[in-house]
């Protein structure tokens, strides 16, 4: 088994781990980290699989660099929103679908009223 394949296999596991994290965890920060894990898994597979015969391939490496920047951007946006959410509601997770929007709305409205 070449080093590339080991990277790729690790990447697969990381991806699934990250996916599970996004799906199953509650805390926003952990979910954002889990998403990054998914991305890292994909990057490992991209680079690892391409050099499983031992010769490095610059194309996936460049793609990974691009992917990292995109992941940084997405993470930055996610953290910004999570921070904003925390500042507005004091919560570290987003509640279940249906009622969350309306509850948060009501809270925001109440706050606005109090502010007046």
């Amino acid at each position, binding site marked *: 088994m070449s080093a590339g394949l080991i990277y790729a296999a690790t990447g697969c596991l990381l991806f699934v781990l990250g996916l599970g994290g996004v799906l199953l965890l509650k805390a926003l920060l952990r979910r954002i980290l889990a998403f990054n894990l998914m991305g890292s898994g994909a990057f490992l597979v991209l680079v690892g699989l391409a050099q499983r015969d031992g010769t490095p391939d610059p194309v996936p490496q*460049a793609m990974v660099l691009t992917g990292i920047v995109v992941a940084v951007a997405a993470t930055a946006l996610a953290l910004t*929103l999570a921070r904003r959410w925390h*500042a507005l509601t004091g919560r570290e997770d987003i509640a279940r679908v249906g009622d969350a929007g309306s509850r948060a709305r009501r809270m925001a409205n109440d706050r606005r009223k109090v502010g007046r």
Partner: protein
Amino acid sequence: MKALWRSLTVVALLGLAAALLVAVLGLPPAPVKLAGEVATNLGASGVSHPVTAVLLNFRGYDTFLEVAVLIIALLGMLAAGLPPPPPTGSRNAMLPTLARLAVPLMVLAAVYLLWAGAFRPGGAFQAAAVLAAAAVLLHLAEILAPWPRDRRGPRLAIAGGFLLFLAIAAALLANGGLLRYPPEHAGLLIVLIESGLTVSLAVNLAAFFLLRADKT
């Protein structure tokens, strides 16, 4: 119900992991080998490092769009509302000294990374990340004040680097395609783009940290 759902998800994920492992480990060799193509065309790319050649020449269009993604993330932060400025005066006495020592070195490292990108690992994004870290360090040491929302300078720097990239991409249409460098000028144009990007990306990354709501 919820527990059942979670365990089902876990089982499905384990199945996916097993399938992926089997698939990856048993994969036959790929029919297309791009490494060779990159090596063949490296001479016409204007740089001597193959990753940089892919990043800024062969797949330069990806990089062009990627810069936009970073600006979008910043815009998303502006749209969602900026955090209030941090309280002042709580700094550690060590920090300013450390910052004053480290920042010139970091700037130097960034310039090196940018310059090295042409022939060994490095490049605009790495340089920008170091520069942004320097800015954050200065900010934490309260040497660099937070940026108000409508401050002109950071916007100009971020937009400027990208607009330079865009202008070159558009001008090269005259050569027959988006970002189609003439081989004899490719090196120069790539350096130009990379320098602009370094500034743009650095300020963009730093802005995530430094942009704060106005004091009102």
